[in-house]
Structures are given as C-alpha cells and as structure tokens.
C-alpha cells in the first residue's frame, strides 16, 4: 500500500482523471472529496459490502416462487 501524508486542501492524483482531496481533518474523521470521470464508480466500502451481502442473500433463494409472488400480490 502506498502511504502519503497530506494536509488540509492537499490532493492525491490517481492516473490522469482521479483527484482525491482532503477537505477537513477532525477528531472523528477525515472529510475527503473525490473527482473522478463518470465511468469510474466511487462508493463507501461499507455500503458496497452491504449491497454485496444483500445480493448474496437474494441469489438462488430456496423458497418457492409461488409463495413469494403471493406475498407480493397481497402486499400491492
């Protein structure tokens, strides 16, 4: 892992198009701004992980489709 020391308003460039800037340094955390091209996804890792876990739970459910479809029809 590359490690840098950066102060407030200082920036790291990744490739040509990605800029990571330190906006504020506080006791509870560091506020970071990211400028990236539209084709580069940027996510908080914990949100990505939550969605990954939800997808794994959703995949290949063992329950009968008819029972789930019935729950949906009752709900709507």
């Amino acid at each position, binding site marked *: 892992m590359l490690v840098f020391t950066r102060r407030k308003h200082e920036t790291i460039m990744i490739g040509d198009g990605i800029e990571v800037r330190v906006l504020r340094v506080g006791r509870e955390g560091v506020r970071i701004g990211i400028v990236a091209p539209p084709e580069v996804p940027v996510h908080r890792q914990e949100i990505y*992980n939550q969605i*990954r876990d*939800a997808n*794994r739970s*959703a*995949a290949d459910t063992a329950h009968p489709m008819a029972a789930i479809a019935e729950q949906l029809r009752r709900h709507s």
Partner: protein
Amino acid sequence: MTMAQANVPAERLQVHSRFADTDVNPGDVLMFAEGLPGYESTRQFVLLDVPDQAPLKVLHAVNATEPCFLVVDPKCVLPTYRYELSDSDRHRLGAKDASALLWLAMVIVDDAGTAAVNLRAPIVINPERMTGRQVMPNACVYPLRYILGQ
C-alpha cells in the same frame, strides 16, 4: 455485421436453474459491464417472465447456473418509489435520458420465508442498449431490506 455473419443462425444460450430451464436468443442478453456486487465476474444476464408468477420476474445469469435473482418492479412494492439516476449511472448505461429505463428490485427471502425487497440498490436496465447495472447512490432514503406487509 457482414452478410455472411447475418446468415449464420445465432446460437441459443443455455439458462438453467431451478427457476428456469430454457435457452435464450443472444439478442435478449443484457450486458452488466461491472457485474453485480458479489458477482463481479458475471456479466451476461437475461430477464425472464415466469408464467403465473407475476409480478415476479427472474434475472438469470447466462450459461451459468448462478446467480439467479427474483426481481420485481419497485413501484409494485412502493407506489411512491422515486429514484433520481445520477448522470454517471445514466452515462454508463448508455442512456440519453432516463425515461425508457426499466427498474427492478431484488427480492430477499429470510429463513422464515418472509420476503423483503432491496429498494436501496435497484437494478436499472436500458432496453435500447441492452445494458444493465445495479445503482447505489450515496444518499438514499430507501432501505436495503424493505419487508413486505409494512
């Protein structure tokens, strides 16, 4: 495509799991350029209607037995559902505007058989380009598991 290629019959693609056992036209394949979180290497899916199981549909990996997801129009679950697609997601779907896009939410069933719907990170499909992706805006009011019957 050249004339010679056009004359070759398109090879049907296999879709096989306990939810579907069929073959599909290559023209029906949706390309998920980044896969899905947890299934990053699976890029090709088809969306299947299943007789008598409306409003459920199946989002199925092509030429693989997994993953396979039960999906539903989020407005079916929450009629007020509204989602602002980011320019970046629209760009990656190759969509000029958001009007023709198809929205789907994954169904998650717990061990007790209670169904929840992922309204937090919906799947968006652009039928014009046959592209799809799962979107996950950083600010979102909808839950990852919206339990049916609420």
